[in-house]
């Protein structure tokens, strides 16, 4: 080291303050924390003081924005996301595809209604048709200027922001979180015949001559997420904020006014209705940190999956762990690992029934296998309980 020559004057000290070590040798720094010498009797902790499967302190606060229909701020450690939901009315007249139907669809629809099979099934299909095909949910995520170093003002939306937007949208669609019925604005044409006949028949008229009610408009939910501080794991924070904001969202009572030929909304807050969401899917992200930083690229032959597993088991027995799966990685840890995993789980019946996985992904490496994923699902299920408590309180 160069410092040895200079250290004649001062007592030789080769130790660096931890903050400098962390910057110079980030990989070795984290590794030293995770695998402390056996003699020191210290537990294996991450550089941020958390255990491997521990999430950061999470807080949520709903309804803090006044000009939105629903909003939430979610903070996971130093990553903070603000979400605002704005509802706007979309008249069916303005939808190009509204008056268009596909002949093939209609035939299958007819069959469905005739056979009366699977009521939820056809409802699902209708939900998908309305929410997905008409784009009634429009999430957009922006990584605001200065949320982390490197986000300069005036730049085009980064690939990360765009892909997070897509993940939010596809998760909203695949979980069918929002029910299409909440977003529909109906019009029930008055039954003129029944009125003429008088009141004595109003029980029968319900069934007989009532003109079919029609959808006049939809609510479009613009879900804007802003990451105001990014310190790793933006997806969990963004999704939690979307979820909290949607739980907070109230739509005013709206109806079609036939005389003015327009949609009217009620001012009365008492009339406003909350969205009824399907379930509470909670996202948990993980990354895998490998002891050998060069494992992936050194030109050695990569062993077969089985071999590698056996080798790992052997090393584990000797007390040498080769890799750690870190829950809720912060920015520092994300920079040191390439392999990522994300599990989104939900529990039916308010957490009493079994765990349902709604999304699972892993990419960027080959260390995590089926057994690891099973553990991650279990960790995510625990996280679900924690997040439910936090979201219920906000």
């Amino acid at each position, binding site marked *: 080291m160069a410092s040895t020559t200079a250290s004649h004057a001062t007592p030789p000290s080769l130790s660096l303050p931890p903050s400098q070590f962390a910057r110079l040798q980030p990989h070795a720094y984290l590794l030293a924390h995770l695998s402390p010498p056996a003699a020191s009797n210290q537990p294996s902790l991450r550089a941020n003081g958390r255990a491997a499967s521990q999430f950061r302190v999470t807080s949520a606060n709903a309804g803090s924005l006044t000009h939105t229909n629903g909003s939430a701020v979610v903070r996971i450690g130093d990553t903070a996301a603000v979400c605002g939901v704005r509802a706007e009315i979309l008249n069916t007249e303005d939808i190009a595809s509204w008056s268009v139907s596909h002949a093939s669809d209609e035939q299958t629809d007819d069959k469905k209604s005739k056979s009366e099979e699977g009521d939820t099934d056809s409802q699902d299909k209708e939900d998908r048709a309305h929410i*997905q095909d008409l784009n009634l949910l429009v999430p957009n995520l922006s990584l605001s200027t200065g949320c982390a170093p490197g986000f300069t003002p005036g730049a085009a939306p980064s690939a990360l922001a765009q892909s997070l937007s*897509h993940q939010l949208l*596809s998760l909203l669609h695949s979980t069918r979180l929002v029910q299409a019925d909440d977003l529909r604005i109906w019009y029930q044409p008055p039954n003129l015949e029944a009125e003429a006949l008088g009141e004595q028949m109003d029980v029968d008229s319900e069934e007989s001559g009532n003109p079919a009610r029609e959808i006049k408009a939809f609510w479009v939910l613009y879900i804007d997420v802003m990451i105001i501080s990014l310190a790793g794991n933006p997806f969990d924070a963004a999704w939690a904020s979307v979820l909290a904001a949607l739980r907070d969202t109230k739509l005013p009572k709206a109806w079609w006014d036939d005389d003015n030929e327009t949609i009217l909304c009620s001012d009365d807050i008492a009339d406003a209705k909350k969205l009824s969401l399907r379930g509470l899917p909670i996202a948990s992200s993980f990354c895998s940190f490998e002891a050998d930083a060069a494992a992936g690229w050194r030109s050695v032959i990569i062993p077969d999956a089985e071999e590698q597993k056996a080798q790992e088991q052997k090393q584990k027995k000797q007390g040498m762990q080769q890799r750690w799966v870190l829950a809720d990685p912060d920015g520092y840890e994300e920079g040191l690992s390439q*392999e990522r995993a994300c599990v989104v789980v939900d529990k039916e019946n308010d957490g009493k029934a079994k765990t349902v996985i709604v999304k699972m992904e*892993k990419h960027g490496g080959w260390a995590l296998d*089926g057994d690891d*994923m099973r553990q991650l699902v279990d960790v995510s299920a625990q996280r679900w309980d924690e997040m439910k408590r936090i979201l219920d309180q906000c």
Partner: protein
Amino acid sequence: MIGPTASLSHLHRADGSASYKCPATGYNILGAVNAPVELPGRRDALKPEEATVEVFVKPGTTTAGVGERYVEGLLRSVLGKVVLGREKGFPRRGVVLTLAIVGGENIERGDSYLTVFPALLHAGLLSMISASVPLSMTFSATLLGVTKSGDIVRDPSPAAAKAAVSLHVFAISSKNHLLLNESEGRFDFDTWELARQNAVTICQGSSKGSDGDVNMEEEKNASGNGFIRETVEDQIYSDYVYKLDSI
């Protein structure tokens, strides 16, 4: 079932190219790789010690949107891990992969991207091989749909994929590693595990179980990794056919 078809190195300008067609899902993908190339516009993104893998996905009949950015990120992370970006000549350079979806149904905004994903992965890998980019391993991918009755369907058509309860994409390396998993829908872990085992069988073929050596060739064809190998072998054969004649 009609198997997929692929060809290598059919373009002139790109360093490597491949086309991949999957009749079951109807997708036809063209891939081109330029590597290693200078990326003057991305100087800030270049890494000093290894190559930068860039992926661009061009949809067939729409303009690229957020979905493409997402799938590009996934492809980058899978291929970036497989490419030996520290080999000589690669650091500070780019490996640029361009994939064009020239056949098959359009993916609307907000639709699941999983249905095209295996085809994109295959086209990307074959293009990399065609461009002689050093790789640590090859892989193959498969799309599995779980129907309402709990059956696992391989390579469901776009309509069947829409009706499926859950969709799973797995990429299994030539050495049996799980390289990538993307699952969505509603499912439990046992279903996922079952799908994963199915995927391993599809990608690897039932290599150990069969004791008869009669249908070895057929099995090789049937598995995903076998298909990749076969495609490359065919190309090498046609490239060196002049040598074979002279022997």
